[in-house]
């Protein structure tokens, strides 16, 4: 079943088109990665899916329904969870408050504490620190909190913007191991990632975005072997 279908998406900032006619689809249970150089408009696509930037043209369909005009909170309630590049952790809130906040996307009869407990299974290190302010967290911990918080809402689609950004290599291994576990458990994930090698290993499908235009990469393995792509994206000779 097609969960998410973006077609002919245009996102503009003033006179500049950041995304020009992008189309992506995500099937339930897929892990889809968008790769591409800096400034290619990858984040804009994700923000458009979550409703955080205005779409100039094109549409976003969620389980067959056009949600292009929906407010972000309505999308969250419909089952889309978003972890932005900045992680979007509320520094003035405690870690526990951050986690429980995602309960806003859940129906009123759902036990939020139970959901938080389930999400914390993935990040046990946070369990004892729920009353601390989120501002004290390190970059890696902040990423854990952001992803954990997204999981509290039990989303049907988890969107991650540059999850590896600014993380130390050790933390990176942990992060991708965690993401692989989520994939194996059947979560649907759409992520933007600059670390193409890692993205290729994780993802079922790969899209490449250049200058606001998107292309489906039919064979990720081929991409990794392609010398010109290696040079451009991976910085490998």
């Amino acid at each position, binding site marked *: 079943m097609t969960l998410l279908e973006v077609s002919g998406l245009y996102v503009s900032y*003033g*006179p500049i088109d950041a995304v020009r006619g992008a189309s992506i689809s995500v099937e339930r249970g897929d892990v889809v990665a968008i790769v591409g150089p800096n400034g290619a408009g990858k984040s804009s696509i994700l923000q458009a899916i979550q*409703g*955080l*930037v*205005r*779409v100039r043209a094109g549409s976003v369909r969620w389980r067959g329904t056009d949600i*292009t*005009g*929906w*407010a*972000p909170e309505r999308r969250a309630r419909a089952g889309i969870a978003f972890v932005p590049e900045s992680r979007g952790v*509320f*520094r*003035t809130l405690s870690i526990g408050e951050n986690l429980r906040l995602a309960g806003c996307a859940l129906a009123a009869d759902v036990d939020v504490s139970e959901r938080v407990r389930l999400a914390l299974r993935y990040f046990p290190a946070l369990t004892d620190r729920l009353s601390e302010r989120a501002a004290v967290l390190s970059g890696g911990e902040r990423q854990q909190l952001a992803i954990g918080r997204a999981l509290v809402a039990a989303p049907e689609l988890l969107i991650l913007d540059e999850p590896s950004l600014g993380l130390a290599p050790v933390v990176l291994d942990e992060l991708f191991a965690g993401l692989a576990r989520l994939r194996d458990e059947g979560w649907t994930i759409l992520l933007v990632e600059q670390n193409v090698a890692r993205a290729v290993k994780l993802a079922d499908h790969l899209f490449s975005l250049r200058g606001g235009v998107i292309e489906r990469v039919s064979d990720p393995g081929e991409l990794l072997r392609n010398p010109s792509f290696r040079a451009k994206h991976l910085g490998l000779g």
Partner: protein
Amino acid sequence: MKSPRTSRLARCAPAIICTLLVLAVSGLAEAGSQTTQRTATQMLIMGIITVGTYIFVGNSGMLSFGHVVFVAVGAYTTALLTMPHSLKQALLPALPDWLAEIELGLPEALLVSGLLSLLVGAVFALLVLRLDGMAAGIASLALLISVNVVISNWDAVTRGSQGIVGIPADLTIGTTVPWMIGAIAVALAYQLSRSGFRLRASSEDPIAAAALGVRIRRDRSIALLISAFVCGFGGGLYARFLGALTPGDVYLQLTLLTLLMLIVGGIRSLSGAVIGTLFISVLAELLRRVEAGGEFGPVGLQPHPGVQQLILALTLLLTLLLRPGGITAGRELGFAVPGWGRSSRRGPSEPSPDPSGLVVEGGNGLDDAGQAAPPRRDPV
């Protein structure tokens, strides 16, 4: 390619058209009753003050609630410098001798008014321009309050809240129009200057402005000084128009009226300042007559105090909600102006093609459905 001459003409077009507009309205009023003529004179003076405020607010994109301070300084200066010697002795016995002796002609007095306002403007620049956006607006308001308290209590010079009376009130449409045209010319000259261009560019691209930091503050200061000078002039004329000057004449009411004119006309263009003045002045006068009640042909009206304010406020509110760029939407009158294309077509006040039409000046331009966050601020 256009020849240099046509392009110069094109660049001056907004000022020329504004001037013609002002002349047309003034000419019409000249044929009207005494009251109409007086209203038109007041309109011209408001025009000078509004254009003066525009020079800073319109070009820098910073809101100021303090410009009436310059008007106040100009008004009291001209009042004191042009009043008859004998009257000053009677009204203000505590005035220093040298000040009591002076009796200047109007142009000289206005020049002194402008220069004094310019000095006050320098203090303003020092105090306010270091602050950003909203804090600067509130700080300018604090200065306005503070100056008003001084004026209201400085009995020796301003006669406090009793106010100064007996200022020669001899302005007519004919003697005011040249000053108004002068203000328009100064405003145009500034916005075509390098400094004006940089300031406009920076206010339309805040990131570049931040990168240019120091330079922008200098350009803001220049705009503020010129703005203060013109407002000082306007204040001087205002005093000569009123004939009697109290602290309340140069306080919040006037501040609000100036901003009303600027916003309804279009805060980002000189044409907007002029059109706003004309539009609001005419509207306010009509409403004043309705408010006062009386016979309008077959229709008899009861006096309704508050109607004027109600309708003016509604005009402002509807402008902000429906046409956030004001009447001119940030454009200048006239033909396409080379070098202005970007700023006028892509200006932040330009309503975007969003069908919801709820796009707001300089904002993220979001409708109720696809909204983004307001700019980040300090947390609670």
